[in-house]
């Protein structure tokens, strides 16, 4: 494990490390360097713990065990059970649009900016493996038809942000922000009551341009959408957000949907559910009364 780096901002510390497939930052509104380093290390431990436990790219975790069970029932631990309960709720509330079994569709879709779409037969075969409603989930035992796979990537990062922030908040009364790859949570106002200034990246020019600025005091913020991942088909640009019911990309989804809510997980879930509405994303968020930005 590479130790985190620590850098002094104008009047706060920024700790950085890599986890969950991207850059992670912890902003700490305090002066003691050792305290800052210990807190960043704590956040890193939590990020790596959750990554190891729920990454679908690892072969030694509960997700791999579930995905390789070959139709046999798998008993899961309490934390996994809570995440599955949450995923099941999202599936139900989205009427099947949010589905943690839809990851297998990536076997046939490549969003590299090219013009390749899967042939009908290949898509039909893989689509046969999608559908949370086919899974028997009775806490704590999951029985999934053979060949199906689950992927908690859609909620895992946001969950890790909230969990790490809650963990740090128990260890310090100083305000802080946990930011894992753009999904973040702020625990409170900075000294002097100032909010944290959050830039919303231009999804097409990551790190080079800021589309917007959000002042955040306390709460979660998450953005969904990635405009660099698409295919062009029949003159149409199809983004990478797939509809698990058809196996095809949702058309007309905004480039980026940023939601500000009470937790990072809530923000991430709402931005994902909104994106799944395609052109109806803004209306969906307006109806829910949540604070959001659409670009």
């Amino acid at each position, binding site marked *: 494990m590479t130790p985190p780096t620590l850098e002094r901002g104008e009047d706060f510390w920024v700790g950085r490390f890599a986890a969950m497939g991207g850059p992670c930052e912890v902003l700490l509104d305090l002066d003691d360097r050792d305290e800052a380093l210990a807190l960043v290390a704590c956040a890193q*431990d939590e990020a790596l*713990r959750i990554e*190891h436990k729920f990454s679908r790219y*690892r*072969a*030694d*975790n*509960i997700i791999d*065990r579930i995905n390789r069970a*070959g*139709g046999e*029932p798998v*008993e899961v*631990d*309490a*934390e996994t059970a*809570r*995440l599955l*309960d*949450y995923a099941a*709720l999202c599936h139900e*509330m*989205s*009427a*099947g649009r949010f589905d943690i079994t839809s990851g297998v569709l990536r*076997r*046939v879709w490549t969003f590299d900016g090219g013009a390749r779409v899967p042939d009908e037969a*290949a898509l039909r075969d893989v689509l*046969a*493996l*999608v*559908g949370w*409603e*086919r899974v*028997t989930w*009775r806490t704590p*035992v999951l*029985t999934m*038809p*053979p*060949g*199906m796979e689950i992927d908690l990537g859609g909620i895992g990062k946001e*969950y890790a942000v*909230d*969990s790490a922030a*809650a*963990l740090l908040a*128990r260890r310090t009364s100083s305000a802080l922000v946990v930011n894992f790859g753009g999904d973040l949570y702020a625990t409170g106002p900075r000294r002097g009551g100032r909010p944290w200034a959050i830039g919303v990246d231009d999804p097409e020019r990551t790190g080079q341009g800021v589309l917007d600025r959000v002042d955040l005091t306390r709460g979660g913020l998450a953005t969904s959408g990635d405009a660099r991942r698409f295919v062009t088909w029949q003159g149409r640009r199809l983004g990478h957000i797939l509809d698990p019911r058809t196996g095809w990309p949702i058309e007309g989804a905004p480039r980026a949907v940023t939601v500000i*809510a*009470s*937790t990072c*997980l*809530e923000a991430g*879930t*709402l931005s994902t559910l909104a994106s799944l*509405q395609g052109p109806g994303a803004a209306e*969906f968020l307006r*109806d*829910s*009364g949540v604070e959001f930005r659409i670009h």
Partner: protein
Amino acid sequence: MQLAAPERGLAARRRIAAAACALIAAAVPTAAHSQEATGSWTLDTSILLYGEQDRTEIFEPVARISRLFSNGHRLSGQFAYDAITGASPTGALPSGQLQTTTTPSGNTVTIAAGAVPTNEFQDQRFALDGEWEAPLARTLKSTLGAHYSSETDYMSLGGSASASYEIMDRLTTLTAGMGYNADKVSPIGGTRTGLSDGTVAVQGLDNPKNVTSGMLGVSHILSRRWLVGLSGTLQAEDGYLTDPYKVVSLVDSTTLEVSGQLTEKRPDKRQRASLLFSSVYHLNEDVFYFSLRGYSDDWNVRSGTLDLRLRHELANGKYLQPHVRYYSQSQADFYVPGLIAGQALPAYASADYRIGPLRTGTLGLTYGFHVKGMPGTVSLRAEYLRQWLATPGGEGEGEGGGGDDDRAAGGGEVRAGPVTTATIDPASIQSNMPPLNIGSFLIGYTVNF
């Protein structure tokens, strides 16, 4: 497919907010104990009790532990111990007179008239198995295995290798494997010449028995509910294949009384082939398992096995799984209930019920549940087995064990049937016995940590 419209609006948002909040609130204590199970270890333990009516009893505890590593490799080890006690039929026919027979410990016992001659025995077996599974690529996996087991008169050492490859968007898996076992049979009391009176025994002989096997299999996901598989296995056995303690009775052609006995003798080669079709079908919540197996060997034993299981989910992670199995085999070419005294001896002969015309029916039920406050799953399985011998050319019932059926451990009573002519065909000696009842009970516990 759900066709309902998604929930939206303020109420929907509050529902998500509350669920997310509850999830995070519960996460903190978990994170604080970050040593908590990543779940890379699995422990699987069981104790099997097996009892044949008035015959063999087996007590078998098994422990299996496996560890998944972050690079996808899996190592597993299994230890099994068997304590076997009881009586196994020697193959001799019951007689009207007292009859003598030797036991595995080299002693002589006398059997009361009319009873099925059996060997009283007691043995212990230790077995160690190791397996290493290595992912070579995302769709290619290799498995290497090693086996060692030891009992008083038998030692087995073997190795296996297999590879599986996923194709067609990982919907189809191809598997190929091979194995080799070098076993040694060291009969207690010495190795006796086949089809002899058994008085001459060569001491201290380790008789080799080698088994080479090859397997090809394919499994395919037909739909999200249905997985089917087909696999074929070829096996060549070479060496000492005779059972050192089994005998064949000699029957007097006029009195029909048992007049003596010979040691049994089997060929020193056996080619086996089997084909297995299996299916796993997911109903809405329950899972239906079906398998059909066909088997044939060059001793002319043919068999078929039908196996059905249904896992029925109950509330709170409990389940019930009924199990039905039927097994039927034809007898080996050289299987004889008894030989006629004074007639020319065949090249091979065995009265072992396990290569006779055996039938086995099994009814079982498994109940799985969780103990509150304890991780893991407990399962209880009870099975009732009934074994009988089909009389050649008729529906008369005999009894025995299986040449191909590993489950058969019991023995059979054989009785000389009504034979009236002076030139008796050995085939006319009837197997005419009550079926054997067998019970087994298994308690298992599986936990990840």
